[in-house]
């Protein structure tokens, strides 16, 4: 009986040992999955040129795709700058500054196994620029063309060299090219060949629709599963060309959750590991429960853009400077925004290569502001009425109504009588393009539309150059300052990167000295992340490198 008992025990131990041994390798290779709740209501487009602004680029652009140039996202302290991507080096033609030569990275393949080469670059340029190309897709033009407004064409020189041409000399091209993601022509062609349609255009559209469901780029993540409006599953590209950026997590699941409370609840209940923009009032609870909060200054400005047409009250520089000195940005940050902003003292802050050395220091100095207003002829009994158009909500607008009411209160102490014209966000966008002279401005002499400041065109040129006034671009207030025009030209036509940066810094300093905008805040891209997730580096950028992230 004893022997039988011992035998049974021995068998049980052996069985346990066997099952543990069997489980061990499985545990060691258990798949790691990072689940992220985005603020988007839908998965950003997956076919190469994402929609939904830079959130689209962050999640379905820079993950599955690469561009010729990229962003350095490795540091939380330094400004993100442009670095080589699928191009290893580039150079403008000394004789003709509209021609650029890009040397391509050898040995790169798309996720479908096809090679990345000069033909692929030409094909991808033509998908958004050449209307008679079979792969031309109007739906990708809008989100691309305005981000590289001078790019005209692409030509293959040899398999690993491509020549790009701009409409005018433009040193910003390498920066703008971060927005052109390289999709696999071979994969698209396979879909096109299989597509059914009445004509080539219909077949092309069908091919792009199919490609969006089964995409192939060259990026560190490969598409593994896609349920529109529900989830996108990406798996690591183990053979990614940049070995330092081969993802450490096996799988990343992206979930659209537009409602901040829903995102926060999903994180708190363990349904996701990472949420973008958690509900601000939940931050104390998130911290208390051990979640990690990340935030960093983004290249993003929350401003008032002034009208400079004849008769505008903002034409007096003393008034513009007074407004900039009358807002207590630290108070706005610590009070209303619970720390989730960086006070703006220009488009770029100290440490950024394009900051320069402005002589006008933007800070809170109510006495100086009141003095300037009195010099301009205003005072407690003679207030200056100004009207600003804004929205009640909107991407990047942070909290437009309470923030504008805060500014309204602040400026009241410096003899401003601020009226707010609150309109729907998309309408505000449309009006932005139409400019202050359009009836849609509704008598406003300032507009409050936030802007991305990733590249010089977006950050400075479209607002400051006189030729960018509507209908061309976003110089909403018709700023017409010869000094700005001259500096824009100088920056555009300076092709040495260091000298170009210096020229941009000069332009930026000039705009701050001219108090071109009422600079208020930079967004900080807050995100809350589970303590299981390690290795997160939140750079001073709209983007983030998911490849660096590990899961415990």
């Amino acid at each position: 009986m004893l022997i039988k008992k011992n035998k049974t025990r021995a068998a049980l131990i052996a069985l346990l040992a066997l099952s543990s041994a069997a489980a061990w390798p499985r545990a060691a290779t258990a798949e790691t999955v990072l689940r992220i709740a985005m603020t988007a209501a839908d998965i950003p487009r997956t076919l190469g040129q994402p929609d939904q602004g830079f959130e689209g680029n962050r999640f379905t652009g820079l993950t599955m795709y690469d561009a010729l140039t990229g962003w350095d996202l490795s540091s939380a302290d330094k400004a993100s700058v442009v670095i080589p991507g699928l191009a290893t080096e580039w150079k403008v033609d000394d004789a003709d500054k509209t021609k650029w030569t890009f040397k391509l990275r050898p040995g790169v393949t798309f996720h479908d196994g096809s090679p990345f080469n000069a033909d692929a670059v030409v094909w991808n340029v033509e998908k958004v620029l050449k209307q008679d190309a079979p792969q031309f897709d109007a739906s990708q033009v809008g989100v691309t063309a305005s981000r590289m407004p001078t790019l005209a064409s692409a030509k293959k020189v040899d398999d690993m060299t491509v020549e790009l041409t701009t409409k005018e000399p433009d040193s910003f091209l390498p920066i703008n090219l971060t927005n052109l993601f390289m999709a696999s022509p071979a994969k698209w062609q396979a879909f096109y060949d299989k597509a059914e349609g009445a004509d080539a255009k219909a077949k092309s559209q069908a091919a792009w629709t199919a490609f969006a469901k089964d995409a192939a780029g060259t990026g560190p993540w490969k598409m593994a599963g896609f349920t529109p409006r529900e989830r996108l599953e990406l798996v690591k590209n183990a053979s990614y060309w940049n070995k330092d950026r081969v993802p450490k997590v096996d799988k990343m699941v992206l979930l659209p959750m537009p409602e901040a409370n829903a995102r926060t609840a999903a994180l708190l209940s363990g349904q996701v590991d990472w949420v973008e923009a958690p509900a601000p009032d939940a931050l104390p609870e998130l911290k208390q429960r051990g979640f990690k909060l990340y935030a960093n200054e983004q290249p993003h400005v929350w401003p008032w853009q002034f009208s400079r047409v004849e008769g505008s009250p903002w034409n007096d520089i003393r008034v513009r400077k007074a407004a900039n000195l009358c807002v207590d940005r630290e108070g706005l940050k610590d009070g209303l925004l619970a720390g989730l902003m960086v006070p703006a003292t220009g488009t770029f802050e100290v440490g950024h290569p394009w900051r320069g050395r402005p002589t006008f220091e933007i800070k809170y100095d109510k006495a100086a502001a009141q003095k300037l207003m009195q010099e301009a002829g205003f005072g407690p009994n003679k207030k200056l009425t100004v009207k600003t158009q804004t929205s009640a909500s909107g991407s990047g607008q942070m909290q437009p109504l309470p923030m504008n009411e805060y500014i309204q209160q602040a400026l009241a102490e410096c003899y401003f009588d601020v009226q707010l014209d609150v309109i729907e966000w998309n309408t505000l966008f449309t009006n932005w393009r139409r400019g202050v002279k359009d009836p849609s401005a509704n008598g406003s002499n300032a507009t409050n539309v936030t802007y991305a400041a990733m590249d010089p065109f977006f950050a400075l040129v479209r607002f400051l150059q006189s030729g960018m006034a509507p209908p061309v671009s976003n110089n909403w207030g018709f700023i017409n300052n010869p000094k700005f025009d001259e500096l824009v030209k100088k920056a555009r036509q300076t092709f040495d990167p260091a000298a170009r940066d210096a020229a941009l810094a000069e332009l930026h300093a000039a705009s701050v000295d001219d108090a071109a905008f009422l600079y208020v805040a930079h967004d900080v891209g807050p995100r809350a992340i589970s303590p299981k997730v390690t290795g997160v580096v939140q750079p001073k950028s709209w983007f983030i490198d998911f490849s660096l992230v590990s899961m415990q």
Partner: protein
Amino acid sequence: MLAYIARRIVYVIPIVISVALVCFLLVHITPGDPLVAVLPADASQELAAQLRTAYGFDRPLPVQFGLWLLRALHGDLGNSIATGRPVLAEVMRAVSNTVTLAIAAAIIGFTMGILLGLIAGYFRETWIDKLATSFAIAGVSVPHYWLGMVLVIIFSVQLNWLPAVGAGPGGSAAWAWDWAHLQYLVLPAITTSVIPMGIVTRTVRALTGDILSQDFVEALRAKGLHERGVFRHVIKNAAPTALAVMGLQLGYMLGGSILIETVFSWPGSGFLLNSAIFQRDLPLLQGTILILALFFVFLNLMVDIAQAAIDPRIKRG
């Protein structure tokens, strides 16, 4: 009966055309640019004009409407501007999720509503009535998105019993009636059910009370019919009106609730509508509204026919 059904179907045609016209015009007369979904904020007016031509938004409205209606009749509602995906597939997928949610909410809401209504009506002016009526008033008064958040805080965040958001574990297209999927349905379905529950309770209570006070009920009782039999008569007399109310409520639920679906990230028609409005995706907005309106019209047709089948007086009228 067949003539009645044919007549009702004929009545539906002008309604459907009017609905199509209204939903087409509504999205065109609102301010803003229809190309917001594909144009970045900084796009020039030149680029906007170029794309407006590419998408056909530069054509006169009657031409746009005619082409849209013609394509719609062939089952083609165009492609979403934002995603490029066919609108019909997008809408049908979202509607199927909403139908799932609506069915679950209807089962909870109607069952509770009928039960509470019958009990309240039968025990009128007693504490039982007051309790049931309080439930009904709470159901229609409490903001349902607020209730949804409270349920999430209790059952997902605090107790960790049920998922807070989503429509299934894998986000797969196929819904399954198993616990893995059903657990995602519980909180949104309860939240969606409170309004129909309240409305049905109040309707059934009023009908039951009204019928019970009528002479024929006294006559039935005088003839010695037991209470169960009396109740059967009450239910039969209350059914057409209650059915109409429930049909209407089901229509509202099938229309989707933007707030509830957003709170729970439930990928239904309300969520889709929210997304289409936010992105100002005109083809998607038009297609979604049209399909939902057609659902509503179809559902009303079904309710009318069901009512006529139950109560012959209706089809004679």
